[in-house]
């Protein structure tokens, strides 16, 4: 058992706890600790990618208890991808925050580390209740981070965000209670087997529980009609926090993938069919609403928040086909959209600081500092966001179209996806032309923060690189999709004996 497997959770946890213990230490030290931890997380993420790349499931038995009794952590390709993505995103956000944003409230760094610990835990755990616990960790940390910096808009949006997620947690527990009550286990692999063998009388109840989970994850992932907390919450958060939140909706999507492709995927008539059936229209409407919201936004942060909605719709619609190709495409899009929405949140801050009035509001028009430089950055970021070539959005869109063309309903997705892209294009071209073309330069522009600018530019560049060197990534993701669609391998890794027993029974 490789102990490094648990480090993505423990490292930030220890760092966060240490930052609390030594809170009186100089701020620079706190910051440095945060950086060190996050940097190691990036390395760990790369290690995970490499190790999981072999196609094996790495299992870690916390407390040395065998599954399904103890809690196990499982690293597979999907987890590795999510871990690495989180680490890189976290590192970027931390870099941006260290420009002074981290000092606008208390304990940013500790909370940030806890947030990472929660995210990583959610991606690694193989136990449904443990998933709930890590959800709570990442949620409470996100509540705190959302409020970082203070202000009325944050209080209000934060309150709504918190309450809705509390309702979500209650539903999660109800689903857990139902699943445990009917199957008597919590380990996801074990659950998968028991759900598949459930007596017919229990199946509707299990299906109902699975739909409850869908609602819970749907709230986190922000799918229609559960998403309305998102725009205000995301647009109220401070830039690095909002950027980090780009991964938060993806946690919901991760959970949907994990649960519905493992726990409810076995048996003669897998229960997940119902979920896909619901997910498909809802995701399409989400996508459409995202497009409309992007067009109707009145500030860049709101626009970006709706871009998050749009990306969630796209992802879930693609995922609901549940084929290897569609899952691979969805994962590629997930990486792309996470990065780009993060970039846009940071960019909104970068630009807002340079605007004479209105911060990131569209209604305000006034001179902007460093017009051409920032305009160029915005231009490239916008291209990447809309999914125009040569950035990875183009690649992911093409892949999604390819994947969905093989489905009978796929053309609905085509229509909505392309229309939403057009709406996005309209919105960003309006923004860009009215911010960078209409008014002139500021007479005395505010000094330009070079660090954040470099960071944002490199993130856009990274998106380009993702397209340029996309082939290995695509290969990896295709294998990830393949692995996801084969729950038996997962179960065999977690429950070796049970798997052997089952194999023997089956001819």
């Amino acid at each position, binding site marked *: 058992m490789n102990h490094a497997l648990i480090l993505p959770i423990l490292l930030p946890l220890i760092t966060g706890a240490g930052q609390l213990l030594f809170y009186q230490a100089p701020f620079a030290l706190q910051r440095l600790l945060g950086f060190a931890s996050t940097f190691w997380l990036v390395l760990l993420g790369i290690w995970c990618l490499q190790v999981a790349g072999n196609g094996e499931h790495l299992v870690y038995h916390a407390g040395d208890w065998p599954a399904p009794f103890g809690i196990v952590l499982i690293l597979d390709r999907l987890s590795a991808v999510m871990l690495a993505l989180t680490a890189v995103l976290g590192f970027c956000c931390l870099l941006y925050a260290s420009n002074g944003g981290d000092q606008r409230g208390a304990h940013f760094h500790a909370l940030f580390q806890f947030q990472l610990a929660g995210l990583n835990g959610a991606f690694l755990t193989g136990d449904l209740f443990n998933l709930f616990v890590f959800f709570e960790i990442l949620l*409470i940390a996100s509540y705190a981070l959302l409020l970082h910096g203070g202000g009325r808009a944050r209080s209000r949006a934060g*309150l709504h965000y918190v309450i809705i997620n509390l309702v979500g*947690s209650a539903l999660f*527990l109800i689903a857990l209670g139902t699943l445990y009550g009917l199957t008597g286990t919590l380990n996801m692999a074990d659950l998968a087997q028991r759900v598949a063998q459930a007596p017919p009388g229990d199946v509707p109840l299990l299906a109902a529980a699975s739909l409850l989970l869908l609602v819970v994850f749907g709230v986190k992932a922000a799918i229609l009609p559960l998403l309305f907390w998102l725009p205000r919450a995301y647009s109220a958060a401070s830039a690095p926090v909002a950027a980090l939140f780009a991964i938060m909706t993806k946690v919901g999507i991760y959970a949907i993938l994990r649960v519905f492709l493992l726990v409810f995927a076995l048996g003669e008539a897998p229960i997940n069919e119902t979920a896909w059936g619901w997910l498909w229209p809802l995701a399409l409407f989400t996508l459409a609403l995202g497009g409309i919201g992007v067009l109707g936004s009145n500030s860049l942060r709101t626009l970006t928040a709706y871009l998050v909605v749009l990306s969630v719709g796209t992802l879930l619609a693609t995922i609901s086909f549940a084929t290897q190709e569609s899952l691979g495409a969805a994962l590629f899009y997930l990486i792309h959209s996470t990065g780009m929405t993060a970039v846009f949140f940071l960019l909104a801050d970068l630009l807002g600081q340079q605007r004479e009035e209105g911060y990131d509001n569209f209604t305000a028009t006034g001179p902007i500092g460093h017009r051409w430089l920032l305009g160029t950055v915005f231009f490239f970021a916008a291209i990447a966001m809309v999914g125009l070539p040569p950035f990875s959005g183009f690649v992911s869109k093409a892949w999604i179209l390819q994947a969905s063309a093989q489905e009978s309903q796929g053309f609905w997705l085509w229509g909505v996806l392309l229309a939403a892209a057009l709406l996005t294009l309209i919105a960003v071209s309006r923004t860009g032309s009215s911010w960078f073309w209409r008014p002139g330069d500021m007479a005395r522009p505010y000094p330009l923060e070079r660090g954040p600018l470099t960071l944002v530019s490199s993130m856009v560049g990274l998106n380009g690189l993702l397209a340029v060197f996309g082939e290995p990534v695509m290969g990896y993701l295709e294998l990830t999709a393949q692995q996801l669609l084969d729950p038996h391998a997962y179960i065999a890794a977690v429950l070796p004996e049970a798997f052997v027993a089952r194999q023997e029974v089956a001819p």
Partner: protein
Amino acid sequence: MALLYAITLGVLTTCGVYLLLRARTFTVILGLTLLSHAVNLYLFASGRLVSSAPAIIGLSEQPADPLPQALVLTAIVIGFAMTAFVVVLALKAAVELRNDHVDGENPDEDLA
């Protein structure tokens, strides 16, 4: 017993959800608390109802299922943390926004 327990949970849930849908933060928090009571009891019930048999080795022949109890304990603690947090947040929001409405835009508040 099962029916009584189930009906009680139903009443708790109904009251909780109804309060959740009211227009003030305080009421919503009341609703959340009731709902979390109901949820904890529900989760607890997933181990079935057992009288006079705590999950302590040596006390009874067939002890109660300890796992749901452990889960509910965790849920109670998390619920407590969340309640404390949301109460203080509601307070902060009410003070900053000068009211504790949660129903839509309020003309009185300015989100500066």
